[in-house]
């Protein structure tokens, strides 16, 4: 007889209730209640409120199937489990609505207004609306349970279709701009009304995605195996092919996208440039640098001071091209100055000292003491763009900036790849594995670490120089500690020590979610952006610590234990040291 695990169902039900209550309590439901996603049916607020219930409904009766065990039969009990989970969640939400309605907690919890109660009870108020408040999640739980009945491939395609509909609806601005850019704005006007996707358009997108997914069944998986094939020579040929493909795609993109997406991609390019630089310091040489923004600031200020007509001290008004080599020189020097005292320090001491250096550099640029050179709080303004023949590339026309950013990113990717595949790269990897043994093998630790620091600093210098020309003004507030942290997150979440990984990390984190001072595509999540960002980070580190696109070596490191069935030494022997490595960044 199929036993329904009551405890598990209750746990998932409470979790669903908790997520819904939290979303409403933090004010997300109210904030996005008027932003329609699918016209006239679904608003972003309700999507955020209820998305978790079908997931919980599915999970509550989803038994993990291990190799060699035959999967338990799926049937009615799954559906019931899903429905009950949704019900429990609905009850929790209803209780929450009653509490808000009964007591006036507004002076403590700002969002607990009667308006919220109205939303929770679908506009009917407490006594009448309660059944709906409970039944809606129950129905969604039921849908979650029903998913069990579908065969696995169909289920995957349904989920994919739903995901794509939400993405298209959310990124309405992007898609309508693409359609407008390729002269299909008449389509855009009909498909999107009041910034929401028409319901029939949503169904059309779902059908299209299902069709495409069905045709390329598993194609993506096959391509991934071929890409990460075993022997290195075949892999280098593959990655060369990939690079050419990406290059062609990137050339035509700016023409296709129009200014908004070029701006977002230009920002992604800047952060990717810095990500590749930091990837060398953290990913390859294993040094946790939390003050990386200092080099970005040095690059930007060097260009600003040399090229701006309003530069407080030197009115040299050089062209950007003349200022670039100086910017590279100064950031390399900064890399040397910051690197030297830091080299001998251990992992976390290095982190806090580099963090200190980052703050020292920012405050010196901000200070009144040096404002006669760097402009203090007013920064350096009127920085001209990059002179290119007759036109000038600057922030006003982001397409030009995007081309420059792409060029620099490809240059940085080439530099980090070529260094990685050379004796210096091997020295870095050895250094990261076990520093003392690397020294015993003849690697001059100090020089290797300094190399990493200086190359990283130079790449940040490039980014700074481009940033100054793009923005036209340089203010100290653009070089906060938060920038260093976000770049580190891009490298780690993308895939440490792996160039495509960092690229994917930059696109996802900076492009979609937005950087420290950048709105990104999901700009409308404005005040809740960092809340969602934080939750995503935690989920990411629990689910996929090696990153979105992990390097072969990084995933081997993190899952060393499972990989070595035939290891003779016990787990606590040499192996335990392997993942920890040379006490570097781990």
């Amino acid at each position, binding site marked *: 007889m199929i036993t329904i695990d009551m405890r598990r169902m209750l746990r998932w039900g409470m979790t669903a209730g908790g997520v819904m209550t939290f979303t409403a309590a933090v004010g997300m439901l109210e904030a996005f209640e008027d932003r329609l996603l699918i016209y006239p049916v679904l608003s972003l607020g309700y999507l955020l409120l209820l998305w978790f219930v079908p997931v919980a409904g599915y999970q509550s009766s989803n038994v993990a199937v291990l190799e060699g065990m035959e999967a338990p039969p799926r049937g009615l009990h799954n559906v019931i489990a899903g429905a009950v989970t949704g019900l429990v969640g609905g009850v929790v939400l209803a209780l929450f609505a009653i509490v808000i309605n009964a007591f006036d907690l507004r002076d403590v919890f700002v969002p607990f207004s009667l308006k919220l109660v109205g939303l929770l009870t679908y506009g009917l108020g407490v006594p009448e609306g309660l059944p709906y408040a409970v039944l809606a999640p129950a129905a969604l739980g039921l849908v979650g349970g029903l998913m069990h009945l579908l065969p696995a491939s169909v289920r995957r395609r349904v989920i994919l279709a739903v995901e794509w509909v939400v993405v298209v609806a959310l990124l309405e601005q992007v898609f309508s701009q693409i359609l407008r850019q390729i002269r299909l704005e008449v389509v855009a006007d009909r498909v999107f009304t009041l910034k929401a996707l028409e319901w029939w358009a949503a169904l059309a997108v779902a059908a299209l995605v299902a069709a495409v997914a069905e045709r390329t069944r598993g194609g993506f998986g096959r391509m991934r195996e071929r890409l990460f094939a075993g022997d290195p020579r075949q892999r280098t040929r593959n990655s060369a092919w990939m690079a050419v493909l990406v290059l062609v795609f990137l050339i035509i993109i700016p023409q296709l996208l129009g200014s908004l997406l070029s701006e977002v991609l230009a920002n992604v390019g800047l952060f990717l440039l810095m990500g590749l630089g930091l990837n060398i310091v953290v990913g390859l040489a294993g040094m946790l640098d939390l003050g990386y923004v200092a080099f970005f600031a040095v690059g930007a200020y060097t260009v600003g001071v040399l090229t701006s007509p309003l530069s407080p001290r030197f009115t040299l008004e050089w062209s950007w091209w003349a200022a670039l080599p100086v910017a590279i020189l100064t950031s390399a020097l900064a890399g040397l100055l910051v690197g030297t005292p830091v080299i001998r320090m251990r992992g976390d001491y290095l982190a806090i000292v580099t963090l200190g250096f980052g703050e020292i550099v920012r405050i010196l640029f901000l200070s009144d003491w040096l404002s006669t050179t760097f402009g203090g709080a007013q920064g350096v303004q009127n920085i001209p763009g990059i002179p290119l023949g007759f036109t000038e590339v600057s922030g006003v026309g982001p397409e030009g900036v995007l081309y420059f950013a792409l060029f620099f990113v490809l240059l940085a990717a080439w530099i980090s790849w070529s260094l990685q595949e050379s004796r210096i790269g091997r020295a870095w990897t050895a250094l990261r594995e*076990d520093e003392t043994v690397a020294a*015993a093998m003849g690697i001059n630790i100090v020089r290797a670490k300094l190399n990493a620091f200086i190359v990283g600093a130079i790449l940040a210098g490039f980014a700074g120089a481009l940033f100054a020309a793009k923005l036209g003004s340089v203010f100290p507030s653009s070089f906060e500690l938060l920038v260093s942290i976000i770049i580190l997150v891009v490298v780690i979440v993308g895939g440490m020590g792996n160039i495509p990984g960092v690229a994917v990390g930059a696109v996802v984190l900076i492009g979609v979610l937005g950087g420290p001072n950048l709105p990104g595509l999901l700009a409308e999540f404005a005040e809740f952006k960092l809340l969602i960002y934080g939750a995503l980070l935690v989920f990411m580190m629990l689910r996929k610590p090696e990153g979105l696109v992990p390097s072969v070596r990084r995933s081997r490191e993190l899952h060393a234990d499972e990989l070595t069935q035939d290891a003779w030494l016990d787990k606590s022997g040499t192996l335990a040291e392997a993942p920890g490595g040379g006490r570097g960044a781990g």
Partner: protein
Amino acid sequence: MVMLDIHNLHKSFGGVEALAGVNLHIAQGEIVSVIGPNGAGKTSFFNVVTGFYPPDSGEILFEGESIVGLESSRITEAGIARTFQNVRLFLNMTVLENVMVAQHCRTRAGAFHAILRTPFLRREEAEIRARAEEILSFFGTRLVGYRFDQPALSLSYANRRRLEIARAMASEPKLLLLDEPVAGMNPRETAELTGLIRKLRDERGFTVVIIEHDMRVVRDVSDRVIVLDHGVKIAEGSYDEVSSDEAVIEAYLGRPAEVG
């Protein structure tokens, strides 16, 4: 010609005096075994010679020059390479990369060469790879072919020991310090490695110093044996002289009861 000359070497960790005035010399082309009970200071001796810890006092002359106070990477560059008591390989690097990385101090291609992919770099990389493959072939068929690109952590224990020796050879040293090379190996593998150590000296011209507990290996392979106890050299000479020396037996087996 004396390759390694140690005068009055002292090293203590906190209260414990690991090396209490060691004096010894190693001649060029010799195979010398260093034996002694546990805690006699053998591994500390290796660590001090290879620059892991600077000595408290005393002199270490390698080919006539003092290497006291040098970074361990500079000592390796000078020509001393070592293996470790509990195998410390770069486990997540491939077998070939482990040996290639050890040639770091023998090669010169800097960042610019790497970035510009100059012909000098390509030639040097090819040389490094060739030399690594040649050294790995020294151990017969175990570490060649498909093994090149396998991560070091997938190797069996004996193969790891061999890889570590290959890695030490790759930095083109003049003096090889092997720390218990056959520990944990079965008799067949021990015999094979003993033969290889002799080949290291005869074919490759290395001077070899071994720390070892397996007396059969010491007897078969070493030209000369040095016995350390409580941080001091208590005996030196051929295996037969040393094994019959009164002080050595006492160090290992303790003083006979009746003399007490």
